[in-house]
């Protein structure tokens, strides 16, 4: 009796072992940030569930990790702490830093088939600029943006301006801004003409102004910056003059995080912000709004922005293969279209704009295509070696000028000098 019981137990154990072996799953952990408004985590969860349904052998732990800085900190801390993530969505401009820390590997080294190699070519080239280093693809575009100009059409009508004719260049924005700035009887401003955020990512907004003036902030290798070229200084002067000279933008720093609220409550007629906010604005706007290219000076211009997928070195070949499958799923035209509609981030490949979903959406809501159309004037986002420190130099210089503490030339000269010292070793 006992013997039979023992045997049964053995059989049961064997079955159990077999069962688990058959179900052995590749487990992937990824961190991702959210830097704009709206309930985006649930959208990501939905996309991941969709992936797991079609790939039952892979289990994905998608972890929301705050803004871009927080996400990078958490992913790197996990790497050091021995609980590595195999892939993550991180700031597209972190690429040089992540390479220097030996944390990431190029996608070229993981892909095998021609089909996969073709996939690497399927994205908008402008979105790949920050992701390709030394000819190899380190970052795959996911939540990518340009800066666009949101404007309040009702305010335009009220000011006697044509709501279908948003400002096309710097001078027009200054002039229209004056008409759009509304004051009460005692001279207090009730609505500002324009707000450009100067906390969070001031260097990003500044990249747009510089590009509009025909300048870029750094070279492709990330070891030279051009902070104090005359055109760049002129761009910062214009930004400061919006408040100091034209009086159409509030003085001091304008907060990245609360700017959308300002726009929704009609405290500003125009805001410059990431296209990633588009859906959130659309869903809560109580007035008629439009989305347009940022105004030009010499030409149109905006840096691209946002997050890329990276693959971490600390992973097994199976995990890397599975990670590629996941990234392909998240960026395939249908998912990219869904993501774009849910957020306002752009579809990362031309094919995504060919999907029925996005075609219908854009036909009904043309604002959704503005960021994509602006891509032809886009440039890479500020990304250098020792990116964080260099970026902070520029951020501080911009803020000191907008505060009226320093003159543009003086502030940018100082930032340039210090950045050169940091970059001299590369």
């Amino acid at each position, binding site marked *: 009796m006992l013997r039979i019981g023992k045997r049964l137990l053995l059989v049961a154990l064997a079955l159990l072992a077999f069962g688990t072996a058959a179900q052995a799953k590749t487990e992937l952990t990824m961190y991702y940030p959210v830097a704009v408004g709206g309930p985006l985590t649930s959208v990501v969860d939905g996309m991941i569930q969709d992936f797991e349904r079609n790939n039952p052998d892979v289990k994905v732990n998608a972890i929301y990790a705050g803004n871009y800085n927080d996400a990078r900190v958490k992913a790197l801390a996990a790497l050091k702490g021995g609980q590595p993530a195999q892939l993550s969505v991180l700031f597209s401009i972190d690429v040089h830093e992540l390479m220097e820390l030996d944390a990431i590997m190029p996608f070229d080294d993981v892909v095998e088939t021609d089909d996969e190699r073709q996939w690497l070519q399927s994205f908008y080239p402008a979105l790949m600029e920050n992701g390709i280093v030394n000819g190899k693809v380190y970052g795959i575009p996911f939540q990518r943006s340009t800066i666009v100009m949101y404007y309040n059409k009702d305010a335009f009508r009220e000011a006697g301006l044509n709501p279908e004719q948003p400002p096309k260049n710097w001078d027009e924005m200054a002039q229209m801004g004056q008409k759009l700035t509304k004051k009460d009887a005692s001279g207090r401003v009730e609505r500002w003409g324009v707000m450009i955020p100067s906390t969070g990512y001031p260097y990003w907004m500044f990249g747009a102004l510089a590009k509009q003036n025909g300048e870029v902030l750094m070279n492709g290798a990330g070891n030279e910056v051009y902070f104090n070229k005359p055109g760049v200084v002129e761009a910062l002067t214009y930004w400061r003059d919006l408040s100091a000279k034209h009086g159409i933008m509030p003085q*001091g*720093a304008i907060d990245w995080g609360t700017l959308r609220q300002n726009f929704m409550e009609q405290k500003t007629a125009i805001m410059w912000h990431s296209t990633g906010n588009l859906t959130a604005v659309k869903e809560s706007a109580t007035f008629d709004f439009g989305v347009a290219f940022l105004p030009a000076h010499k030409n149109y211009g905006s840096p691209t922005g946002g997050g890329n997928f990276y693959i971490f070195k600390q992973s097994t070949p199976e995990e890397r293969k599975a990670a590629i499958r996941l990234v392909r799923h998240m960026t395939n035209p249908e998912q990219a279209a869904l993501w774009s509609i849910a957020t306002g981030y752009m579809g990362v490949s031309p094919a995504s704009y060919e999907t029925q979903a996005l075609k219908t959406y854009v036909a009904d809501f043309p604002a959704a295509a503005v960021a994509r159309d602006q891509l032809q004037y886009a440039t890479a986002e500020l990304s250098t070696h020792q990116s964080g420190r260099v970026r902070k130099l520029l951020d501080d210089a911009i803020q000191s000028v907008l505060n009226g503490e320093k003159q543009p030339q003086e502030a940018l000269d100082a930032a340039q000098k210090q950045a050169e010292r940091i970059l001299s070793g590369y």
Partner: protein
Amino acid sequence: MNRIHQLYAWLMLLPALVMLFAFTHAPTLSTVWHSLLSPARGGRPQTFAGLSNYRMMLEDDVFWQTLTNNLWYAAGTVPSSIVLAVAMALWVNSGMAGRTLLRLAYFTPTMLPMIAVANIWLFFYTPEVGLFNKLLTLAGQEGINWLGDPKWALRSLMLMTVWKEAGFFMIFYLAALQSLNREMYQAAELEGASCWRIFRRITLPLLMPTTLFVLVNAVLNAFKLVDHLFILTKGGPNNASNLLLYYIYENAFSFFNSTYAATLTVVLLSILILLALVLFGLIERRVHYR
């Protein structure tokens, strides 16, 4: 026999000592060691660099600014939150109606997660849509760009800190007040002493042990603040509200320069030790324990 007792005592202490060494002393020593290394970059390992990180720190304008900011911040928040805490404690210790609710209200800032609170205050402070400027406008005043004006950014942080700390310290003062000897007050009343005199000659001296404890905590907290900064200003504009611990965080995790962060940590640690020594050394003599 005595030996065995001693051994026994050490064995009993061992778990605590191991914890203390592993989580306090070992990290401190390794921080000091790291501050003497050069950062690992581009595949190069860390190498011994002597005092070069300290030299870099002396030339670093941002470091000096964060240090100055921190001193102002401590000077601005510590005395005011303590005075406020005593006042609130005296008030909720009196026999008024609804005092339980009032105590709870004062203690709320301590219970709420600070990141969530900072998010709410971020909107209070926003110039166009924020609560504070709406109130100012009602009073016929110009609005202030609280967090975006370098003159105001640090002060706005201080205001929120005082709001948060005062409620916390009130609890200690309240506990102390309730343990005071009633007879002394009755005697003073018989003598016909005024309220102010009773407060100054009896209450305040008897509260000194609590004040020392609260003071040390408040001063250390002022140098350890980091969470509000993430939400409210990120140290900006142009470092106007940057504090030492946040700058350490930036160096370690935004600039990936862990050795420089270690250097700054050594400085922060020295400041904290120094302050604790000074506070205990100076004030303990004036504290009257029963």
